[in-house]
Every structure is written in C-alpha cells, then in structure tokens.
C-alpha cells in the first residue's frame, strides 16, 4: 500500500493504447507530469486528446499501458488515485437546478473532503475563482463565464495535487479568458496542471512544457523555454508536426 508520494511524478502514463472496436484512437502514448509543472496538451481535433484525458481520469479503461497518479496505480486502486486529481471536462459538468454553494458542497462531499473543513474549502475556491457573491444563484442562470468558473471550482474544491483541464477557456470572451488564465497560473504555482487547448498563445503564456499528439501518437514533446530560446513558436511546431504525419498517412 503506497500512498500518494511527491518523489514520483504527479502523473506517469506509459504506453497508453486505446482502441474502439477496430479503430485505434490512441497508440502508445507516454505522458509525464512533474510537480508544479503546467503541461500543454495539444493536437488537432480527433487526434486522441480527449481519449487520453478520459483515460487519465478513469472514465475510460486503457486497452494497454499503465497510469500512475503520484505513484498510485489508477487501474488497481481507482478510488485512492482519484482523490488526488480534479478534472474539468470539455463541457463543465454542472447541475443547473442547484445553486453554486449546493453544487460545490456536493462536489466536496463526493471528493471526501472532511465535513468540518467544507465551509473553509468552499470559501477558498469561491474566492479563488471569483465567485464571491454568487453562492446563492442557480447555476442554470449564470453566464457561460461564471459557469466555467464553477466548473474550475469543483475541480479544485478538494485541493488536489493534480488538475486536469480540458479546454478551460472554450467559449469565453477575451476578458474572461484573461481571468481564467491568471487563475490557472496561480494554481500552477504549487500544483501540477494539464491543459488541453487549441489556443497556441495560451500554451506559450501558461505552460512549462508542451506535448503534441496527432493520429493517436505523440509527435512532439518539449519545453516552452527551449522553444523560445530557439526562436520557434509553438504554432510553427504544431503545424509542422501535425502536417507531416498527415502527409505520411
């Protein structure tokens, strides 16, 4: 019985494969996320990004390969491993009938936050996500930007070591995007974050490392700082690496 340990990578996935019937969605992807690191996970639509995200969060069982969250095997001990990450899927999973506070309290209890600490946790995430005065509003009546904030709030309510965000800024206006990015940057200071996105500027401004997948394979992995040093933009890398494999195929 090994507990969550910071001597091992926050997420370590080796040889992930996934096929749906005959179609192969993901073939042999490795993914590693260190502590306090923000990883940008990129790829064209249909490249297998969401499939990988779903596997990392236990929503889909990998056909082959292993996933460890801080040294805990996700397949063997899913309940133990799931305590240590928060996940915001592409579409924020919200109950429109509940108020923000009711929903977040439910999220906290689902993630086994100690009952006595729930008010404290609620206070912390509502402040952190700029939801200060909308606690009693119904989620269904909130604007898209606020709903997205509630989505992020539920992902961090249990103060997880790892945060997995699938297109967190999709459908937001430029001001909201700036706010959400600032929030993610703040989260990345003392936690590990994976973001999937289509916005290259977002990756450049937020992430420490970038991994690009195409056609179910990793086609590029590298540090943003290194790219900047070489004077190459993420967009160039993206276009080059994803166009290449298309012409090969």
């Amino acid at each position, binding site marked *: 019985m090994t507990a969550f340990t910071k001597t091992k990578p926050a997420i370590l996935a080796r040889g992930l494969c996934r096929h749906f019937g005959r179609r192969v969605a993901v073939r042999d992807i490795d993914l590693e996320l260190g502590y306090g690191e923000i990883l940008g996970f990129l790829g064209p639509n249909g490249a297998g990004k969401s499939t990988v995200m779903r596997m990392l969060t236990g929503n889909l069982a990998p056909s082959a390969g292993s996933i460890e969250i801080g040294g805990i095997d996700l397949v063997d001990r899913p309940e133990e491993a799931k305590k240590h990450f928060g996940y915001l899927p592409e579409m*924020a999973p919200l109950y429109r*009938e509940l108020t923000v506070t009711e929903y977040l309290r*439910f999220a906290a209890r689902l993630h086994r936050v100690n009952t006595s600490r729930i008010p404290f946790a609620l206070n912390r995430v509502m402040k952190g996500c700029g939801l200060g005065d909308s606690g009693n509003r119904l989620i269904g009546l909130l604007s898209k930007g606020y709903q997205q904030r509630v989505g992020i709030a539920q992902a961090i309510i249990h103060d997880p070591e790892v945060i997995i965000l699938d297109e967190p800024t999709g459908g937001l206006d430029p001001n909201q995007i700036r706010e959400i990015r600032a929030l993610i940057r703040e989260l990345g200071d003392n936690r590990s974050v994976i973001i999937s996105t289509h916005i290259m500027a977002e990756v450049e401004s937020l992430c420490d490392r970038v991994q690009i997948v195409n056609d179910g394979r990793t086609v590029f992995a590298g540090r943003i700082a290194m790219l900047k040093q070489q004077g190459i933009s993420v967009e160039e890398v993206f276009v080059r690496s994803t166009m290449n494999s298309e012409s090969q195929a």
Partner: protein
Amino acid sequence: MLTIAEKELKILFCSPLAWVILALAQVVLAWVFLAYLDTFLQIQPQLVKIANPPGVTETIVAPLFLVAAIVLLTATPLLSARLIAEERRNQTLTFLISAPISITDIVLGKFWGLVIFFCAIIVQVVALSVSLLLGGPLDFGLLLSNIAGLCLIAASFAALGLYISCLSAQPAAAGAGALGILLSLWAMDSVTAESTGGIVRHLSLLAHYANFNRGVIDSFDLAYFAIFIVTFLLLSIRRLDRERLHG
C-alpha cells in the same frame, strides 16, 4: 452513496415534477380511499349478519394498497428515466465517475434516492389507512404485510427503471422503455390470472405482491423481490462499467 442519494432528492424536490407527482398521487389515493369507504359503509349492515365478517382492513386498506402499487408503477418511468440518462446527457456522469467513488456507490445512491422518494408516497397511503382508526380498530398485521409488500414492489420498480435509464442517453426513451416493461409485467399478471400457476405468472411482480396484499408473507415472494432488485442493480453496475471498458 448517501451523498448521491441526498443530491438526487435535492434535485428532485427542486423541480415541480416531484410535487406534481406527490399531489396527484394523493388525489388519486384519497379518491379511491373514499370510494372504498363509501362502499364499505353501504354494505356494513349486511356484513354484520355474517358470522366472521371481513374488517375494514380487508375491505378498504388492502384494495387501497393494490391501487397504490399501480400509482407507483405509473410514477416510476417519470422519475427513473432521468436518473442516469440525464447525467449522461449533461455530461455530469463524467463528474461522478472522476470522483473517488465506485460505480456501485453511484448506482446504489441513485437507487436509494428514488426509493426514499417512493417512501413519501407510501407514507401517504399509510396515513390514509391509519385515519380509519378514528372509526374502529385495524388489523395491524395485515397493514404491516401490505406496507412491506409495497416497499418491496416500489424498490423493484426503482431498480428496473434505473437499469433502463443506464441504457440510454435520452431520458424520454428511458422513460418509454421503463413504462413498456412495467406495463407488460402488469399485463402478465392479469392475462394469466385465470389460468393459475404457470411460469409466466411467477414472473409477474404484481402476482407476488398480491400475496403480501392478502397478508401472506411467503419466503418465495421475498426471494423473488430480492432477486429482482439485486439483478437489476447488478446489471446497472455492469452496464456502466462496460462503458468504461469498451467506450
């Protein structure tokens, strides 16, 4: 598990659906109750002349519980349809599965949420029956057997409805499916009522409920309900688990 049941109830009582169903159930039950009461009062003078006359519990309460089972049967698809199908449609199923709880917890939480709601309807029936104490004594043995039967049949309806909801992403389709299956289970009972015995009759939920209704608690009926409930809960768990494995 309790967290999910509590959330289910909270969402249910936020919507007008729960209140409409409770109100309509109360209207129907009260109406039937008063009708039986009326009949009883009319035939009472003749009943007194019989050596061992049936009491109020047999003439009013037992038939009332039969109607209550039908009320629950029709309410089930309306309530069970959204259990999993709606979570799937709103993408909140992902949220539940990513949380550190097992699929068994999710299924059981949903199941208990619905059963607890059904208990509210059962309380209505019991309250109507107990109100007869104003006029005379009740046969509490028969009443308890009826309550036990109604709870079991309600739980069976809930388990079946939950499973049908697991199969679909559209609440309406899940509701229609559950309604169809429940009605055919009911039809099985009345179609085979004349030719007693036979395998078909053994499969009908209401046939087993009829024994409880007469005050007979048979271990065969208990086993039937237990197997029915457990089977559909296991099927639901398997179904959700399969989705994770096979996409």
